[in-house]
C-alpha cells in the first residue's frame, strides 16, 4: 500500500470520536495542521457530549442535536474524515497500520488513541436479563428512556457514583420510584470526602430515593426480564428496570495486544505518548503521573481532561510539545444542586467545611500538608472560582480562615 494514498492513509488517525478524539481533530486544524486527519468511531453518531446523558438529555430537556460537539458540516468543512459505526480491532505498530471491524485497513503517520471506556458490566447471575441498562452512550440512554416511557416505574440503580446519582435524580423527578444500591459505606466514596457523601445521601433521601449504602448485590432475578435485585441479606428489591453505574473499563485491548503498556489505562508520559512509537493516548483511556495528584498515576475521567489532553497532543503534532499540566475540574448536576470541583482531592490529609450544608450552599476544601489541593463546591460558584486560585497557587491558608464564610476565599491566598 502506498503511504499517503487517499482514503487508506491518514497523517493523523484518531481512534474514537468522543470528547478527546473530536477536540484533538478540532485543535489540529485550529493550530493550522494541513495533513490528512481521520477519526474512526465505534458509535454511529458524529461526536457528541456525554455528560447530558445522565442530565438534561436524559430528562428530555435537551434534544440530541444540541449535544453535537460540532454540526455535521463542520467536519466536512475542516476536512476531518469521520468513519463512524466501525472500530479499530488491531494495530500493527511496525507497519503503522490499523485493521477495522469492517474488514478495511488504514495506515497512519501518527495514531491518537482516544477510545474512552466501556461501562463496566455486572457479572452476577441474571446480568443478561432484559431491562438491565448502562449509561455510557446515546444508544444506552435512548434504550433506557424508552423503557421509562413505556412504563418502567420501579428502578434500581446499582452504584452510587456521579452517574448513578444523576440518573437517580432525573428519574425521581420524572416520578419513578428509585432504589439506589451502593456497596461502599457511602456514595461517591472514590471521588469525594465523607461530608459531601453524607450531604448527597440526605438530599436523595429527601427527594424520595430509597438510598442504601453498604449493600452487596447477589444476583438479579427474573425470567427473561429483570424483576428484582437480590441483596446479601436475602431481601429482594423489586425493579422494572435496573441501571448499572459501576465505572468503566478503559478501551485499550487492540493497543495493548500490539505491545503498548497499560492494561488498566494506557501508560503515557508527560506528552501523552504511549510506549509505542508515534502513538499517543488521551482521555478516559489514558493513565498518567498526574501533576495535580502529587505524581500519582491515574486516569482522569472528565471532559476537562479529555479536551485538554487533546489540545496538548494537537500542539505536539504541530511541533509545540509541552508537558500536560492542565488544571483538573469537573461538575455534576443533581436536582437543583450544582456541584463544581476544582483540583483532585486524592491523597488529602485534612478537610475543611466552609458553610453549612443545611443551607444547600457550601464547600468542602481538601488539604495536603497544609496546602489546598481541591474543593468540592455545592451551589457556590464564588468559592469554586476563588478556591481554584488557591489550588493553583499551592496556597497554605490558615484553616480557621477557610471556614469563615465572611472571608472570601480570594482573601485566603
Amino acid at each position, binding site marked *: 500500500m502506498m503511504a499517503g494514498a487517499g482514503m487508506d492513509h491518514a497523517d493523523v488517525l484518531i481512534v474514537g470520536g468522543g470528547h478527546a478524539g473530536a*477536540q484533538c481533530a*478540532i*485543535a489540529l*486544524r*485550529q493550530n493550522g495542521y494541513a495533513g490528512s486527519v481521520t477519526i474512526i468511531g465505534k458509535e454511529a453518531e458524529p461526536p457528541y*457530549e456525554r*455528560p*447530558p446523558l445522565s*442530565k438534561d438529555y436524559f430528562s428530555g430537556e435537551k434534544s440530541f442535536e*444540541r*449535544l*453535537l*460537539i*460540532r*454540526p455535521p*458540516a*463542520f467536519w466536512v*468543512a*475542516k476536512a476531518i474524515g469521520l468513519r463512524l459505526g466501525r472500530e479499530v480491532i488491531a494495530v500493527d505498530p511496525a507497519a503503522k497500520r490499523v485493521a477495522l471491524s469492517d474488514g478495511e485497513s488504514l495506515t497512519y503517520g501518527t495514531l491518537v488513541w482516544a477510545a474512552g471506556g466501556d461501562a463496566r458490566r455486572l457479572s452476577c447471575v441474571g446480568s443478561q436479563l432484559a431491562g438491565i441498562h448502562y449509561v455510557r452512550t446515546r444508544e444506552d440512554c435512548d434504550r433506557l428512556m424508552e423503557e421509562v416511557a413505556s412504563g418502567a416505574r420501579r428502578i434500581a440503580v446499582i452504584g452510587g457514583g456521579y452517574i448513578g446519582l444523576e440518573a437517580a435524580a432525573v428519574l425521581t423527578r420524572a416520578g419513578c420510584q428509585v432504589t439506589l444500591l451502593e456497596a461502599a459505606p457511602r456514595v461517591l466514596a472514590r471521588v469525594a470526602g465523607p461530608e459531601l457523601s453524607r450531604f448527597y445521601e440526605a438530599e436523595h433521601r429527601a427527594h424520595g430515593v430509597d438510598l442504601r449504602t453498604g449493600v452487596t448485590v447477589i444476583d438479579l432475578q427474573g425470567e427473561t426480564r429483570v424483576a428484582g435485585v437480590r441483596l446479601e441479606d436475602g431481601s429482594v428489591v423489586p425493579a422494572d428496570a435496573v441501571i448499572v453505574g459501576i465505572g468503566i473499563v478503559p478501551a485499550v485491548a487492540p493497543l495493548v495486544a500490539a505491545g503498548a503498556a497499560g492494561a488498566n489505562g494506557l501508560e503515557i508520559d508527560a506528552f501523552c505518548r504511549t510506549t509505542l512509537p508515534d502513538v499517543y493516548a488521551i482521555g478516559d483511556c489514558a493513565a498518567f503521573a498526574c501533576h495535580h495528584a502529587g505524581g500519582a498515576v491515574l486516569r482522569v475521567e472528565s*471532559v*476537562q481532561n479529555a*479536551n485538554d489532553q487533546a489540545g496538548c497532543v494537537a500542539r505536539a503534532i504541530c511541533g509545540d510539545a509541552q508537558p500536560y499540566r492542565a488544571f483538573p*475540574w469537573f*461538575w455534576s*448536576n443533581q436536582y437543583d444542586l*450544582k456541584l*463544581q470541583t476544582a483540583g483532585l482531592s486524592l491523597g488529602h490529609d485534612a478537610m475543611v467545611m466552609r458553610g453549612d450544608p443545611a443551607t444547600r450552599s457550601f464547600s468542602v476544601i481538601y488539604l495536603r500538608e497544609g496546602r489546598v489541593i481541591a474543593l468540592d463546591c455545592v451551589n457556590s*460558584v*464564588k468559592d*469554586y*472560582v*476563588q478556591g*481554584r486560585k488557591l489550588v493553583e497557587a499551592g496556597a497554605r491558608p490558615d484553616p480557621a480562615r477557610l471556614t469563615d464564610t465572611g472571608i472570601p476565599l480570594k482573601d485566603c491566598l
Partner: protein
Amino acid sequence: MVSLTIIDRAGQENSVDALPGQTVMEAIRQAGFDELEAMCGGSRSCATCHVYVEGPALPPPGEDEDDLLDSSDHRRADSRLSCQIRLEQALDGLRVTIAPED
C-alpha cells in the same frame, strides 16, 4: 431567524443566522467556529464560552454567571457567558466577539 455578527479571535467578522431558543454558544458552535471550547456544554460550570457583546440590551448576568466570569483574566464590562444568552428576536443584530483563551 436572529441575525448575529460573530467576531473570531483573528478579528474576522461573520454573519450568522441563528434560531430563536438557541443559546449564543450553540449558535457559535453550530456556525462552525472552532475557537469556543464551551467545555461544559452550557451547564454554567466552566466559563470556556466567554464572549463580549454589543448591540441590543441583554438582561444582566445572574450571580453564578457573574462569579464564573470572574475566573477569566480577560473579563470586561461587556463580558458574558455565551451559553447563558438565549436568543430571541429582540436580540437581532447582536455583535458577539469570542474572548481570548484563558
